[in-house]
């Protein structure tokens, strides 16, 4: 992907520096969220999103929307990398970028509710896994955004993209799917 000329200009040190910055900032995001979530007193209060029966239902559906877009992300990325034997349409990059932006923005109100009203919790396995992946997801996302335009090794982008997708899937399974399974498909 990166041109040989560019690689020569920045050299191996440049690559390593970009990699350290991206992973460092990503780690700071993840740890920072975890620290905030576990140190502040859960308020048990949060703004409700209009149009849903409860804050929890709103969260579950926002996350489901994000997950559907994440699947779009996965498929469009596979097409761009030539892993799906179809001719990549010219708009595939735009689709990938905008579906990703919308997906991550959909997750933000959900995450803010989690952090502000509930915090980092370890009371039961589902909740612990969800808390850990919540921190991991935003760390991986930040790292991926920083890697996109940086001169880092080729493997970093698909690895981080895969990490972001896996993180969101785990979050969706431990929250939305759990909610729909226990409370039914409520809006």
């Amino acid at each position: 992907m990166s041109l040989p000329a560019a690689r020569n200009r920045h050299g191996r040190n440049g690559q390593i520096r970009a990699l350290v910055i991206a992973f460092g900032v990503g780690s700071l995001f993840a740890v920072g969220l975890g620290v905030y979530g576990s140190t502040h007193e859960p308020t048990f209060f949060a703004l409700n999103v209009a149009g849903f029966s409860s804050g929890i239902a709103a969260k579950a559906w926002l996350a489901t929307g994000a997950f559907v877009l994440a699947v779009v992300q996965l498929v469009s990325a596979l097409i761009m990398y030539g892993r799906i034997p179809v001719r990549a349409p010219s708009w595939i990059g735009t689709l990938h970028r905008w579906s990703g932006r919308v997906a991550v923005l959909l997750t933000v109100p959900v995450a803010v509710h989690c952090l502000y009203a509930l915090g980092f919790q370890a009371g039961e396995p589902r909740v612990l896994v969800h808390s850990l992946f919540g921190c991991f997801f935003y760390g991986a996302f930040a790292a991926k955004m920083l890697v996109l335009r940086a001169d880092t090794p080729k493997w970093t982008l698909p690895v981080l993209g895969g990490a972001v997708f896996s993180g969101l899937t785990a979050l969706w399974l431990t929250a939305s799917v759990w909610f729909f399974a226990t409370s039914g498909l409520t809006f």
Partner: protein
Amino acid sequence: MKKYAPLATLVAVVLLGAGLLVANMLSNPANQTTAAPAPSAAAAAAPGEPAAAEPAPAEPPPAEPAVVEKAYTGRSAGNEVTVAIAVKNGKAVAYACDGKKIEAWLEGTLTGDSLSLSGKTSSITATLDDKASFGTVTVDGKEWPFSAKGVASPAGLYEGRGNVDGVAARVGWIVQEDGSVTGVENAGGTPKPAAALDPTNLGATMSDGSPVTVTALDGASTVVQR
């Protein structure tokens, strides 16, 4: 421009998150009561309380706590609320609730025989000895005299934490010496009568079908986080 597009996405996410967090903080009723210019005497008194309580330990040589470790349970004079207090090594925690919708968690100190505790919108001042504690409990501006007896386990103060319908819930229970239990569960800021508690089988506590982790509190517990 294109070079910074991912960075712009990252910044947008951070800004949206920060904006929502601030919106939440501003509209949180708990924050508004302290921010509003004295809507009630209690709210005005509450923020000043820690400051008023602080100088006390600085006075003469602080007296040794009269009781090292003990739990007390009782009720207000007109049975408006039940009260539980636990002391340990000069520290004290308390919980007051009516079993329906009034509740308050408090923390403070025991100096000599005088107790001084405060919570977000509540306070307790009392004296105690080995057998009983007498004083005044104030919750959300309402003030009641109370009496509480020194009790032994399983009577005392219990706290439960769990996820009920996906919402983090906190429960307080007071078990009196005669075995009667009062408690309030708070989930999503809405208080309601607590689920049943069997002090001899804490592990079986359930609320609306979800397990609740229950612990018996002593005076050194943390119940008010700042």
